[in-house]
């Protein structure tokens, strides 16, 4: 279980205030909110890329007391934008094993990377260099690396960025499967509210660096969206699914 209770300031400017929530194992939490509301900052605080005030506990153990390498075994992180380099796709995904490698990679590490490559259908790109990939392909590599890390928590910052609609569905399906079958928890930031309605179990809505709403996905309604985003929407039902239609 993850228990968060923290705030984060950047040079006297309070970016996040009183972020308090709990997440059980095997849950999928979507973090929503307008641009600049602190979604990305919140993810970065969770695995101590940034150092917030307060505490983040994993099974009652405070992350402040853990080394970076130990935190890296708990959290797999996918940033919004990936850096390109001359590394091959295989090498880049192999980096997910970095927290486990003592001196050199073993057969087990290579096997895990091979499985992840198959999972994301990256076989044909495995030996291509990152600087030769499209934005969508690079995004899949970033996701694959986080999976190769075999973390207990996936922190995905707009993971469907640059992906076509088929790949968006495919990626969310893979994440959901990992959440269900491997008891991994996922914390996902998105702008697409319909994606959240389709895949989230819990939502956390940020407004001006504070939690506006936290609860099950049903809590995402017209009023919350109007208060947070300042727009009117209609939520329709279609084939048992809810669809958000903004007023134009």
């Amino acid at each position, binding site marked *: 279980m993850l228990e968060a209770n923290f705030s984060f300031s950047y040079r006297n400017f309070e970016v996040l205030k009183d972020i308090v929530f709990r997440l059980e194992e095997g849950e999928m939490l979507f973090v929503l909110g307008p641009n600049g509301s602190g979604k990305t900052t919140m993810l970065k605080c969770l695995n101590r890329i940034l150092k917030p005030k307060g505490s983040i506990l994993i099974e009652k153990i405070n992350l402040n007391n853990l080394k*970076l390498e130990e935190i890296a075994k708990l959290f797999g992180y996918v940033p919004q934008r990936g*850096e*390109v380099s*001359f590394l091959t796709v295989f090498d880049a995904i192999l*980096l997910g094993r970095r927290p486990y*490698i003592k001196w050199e990679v073993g057969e087990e590490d290579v096997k895990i990377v091979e499985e992840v490559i198959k999972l994301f259908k990256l076989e044909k790109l495995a030996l291509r260099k990152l600087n030769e990939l499209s934005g969508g392909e690079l995004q899949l590599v970033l996701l694959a690396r986080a999976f190769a*890390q075999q973390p207990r928590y996936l922190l995905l910052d707009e993971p469907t960025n640059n992906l076509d609609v088929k790949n968006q569905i495919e990626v969310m399906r893979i994440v959901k499967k990992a959440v269900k079958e491997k008891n991994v928890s996922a914390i996902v930031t998105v702008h697409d509210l319909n994606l959240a309605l389709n895949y989230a179990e819990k939502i956390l809505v940020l407004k001006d660096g504070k939690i506006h709403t936290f609860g099950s996905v049903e809590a995402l309604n017209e009023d919350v969206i109007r208060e947070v985003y300042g727009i009117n929407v209609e939520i329709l039902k279609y084939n048992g699914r809810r669809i958000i239609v903004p007023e134009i």
Partner: protein
Amino acid sequence: MSVAGEYKRLIFKRFSFSLSLIFLLILLTLISLGLGSYRISVSELLFEIFNGNPILWNVRIPRIVSAIVVGASLGVTGAVTQCVLRNPLATPFTIGVAQGAAFGAAVAIVFLGAGQMHRVGESLTIFNPYIVPIFAFAGSLISVFVVLTLAKLRDLSPEAIILAGVAMSALFQAGVMLIQYFATDVQVASIVFWTFGDVGRTKWIEIEVITLAFIFCFVYFFYRRWDYNSLLTGDETAISLGVNPKKVRLEGMLISALLTAICVSFTGIIGFVCLVAPHFVRLIIGGDYRFLIPTSSLVGACLLLAADTIGRNVISPIIIPVGIITSIVGAPMFIYLLLRGKHVRG
């Protein structure tokens, strides 16, 4: 073939490339041993070496060993600097190692009288040889510590290091020019002569110092190879992979700069090897630092040895300092990078 199988084949190719570089270096060494004003055929080489041929033992072998260790040092420091500063054009010289050394050397030559010269044929020799390298090394150190201290105020970001480096380089360059302005003709000539990088001026004891420093630094860099690969993903992702980017950057910069400073202090300024060697490797086997570190060293060694051999033989008996040859080779590489137009890190 499975993905893992294909990857293992790729790793084998990288190993083969490294091995072929070792053979190339041996070949270049044999050629270099034989070439010069006094030519020795390959078949006679072994006999001459064991017979203690003074030309080989006093002139060529120290020169060749010096070219190899200095080239290897510059190659590996270039690879590391480009990674930690996340800039394909970065080298230890970016943070003012060369300009600091030149300033130190200028101070020693002008103010401590190390600049009296005499002519030997066409070449100029600097007296009091140890004062100059000690001051050159001190000059480099000052530059490195000032740059890294300034950059620390800005969270040790690559941009801060580069900007502070450019500022310090300009300052030291101005210092050298000021000293030259008030120096005598002979002293100015000595300073200029010192800045021509030349592996022929190192003696055995100096070669031993460079070699020891290279071994220590190489082991450290190789130990950090996974951290350098992680840094290629950006600082934030590197943290999420368990790597402390600031620590790796600071140590990498410091150790690269110290190794380069030792080389420059004894040999003068040899540019472009740091820049060219890692890029050459990346084009052939990619940017994996597990291989980039050893192969950049080997390419650096091959490049400097080849350049020095050319410099010794092209208008023999006059020896062109190797720094001039490497700059001539390095310029087209810069243009190639410019035309390629892709900004990739590592």
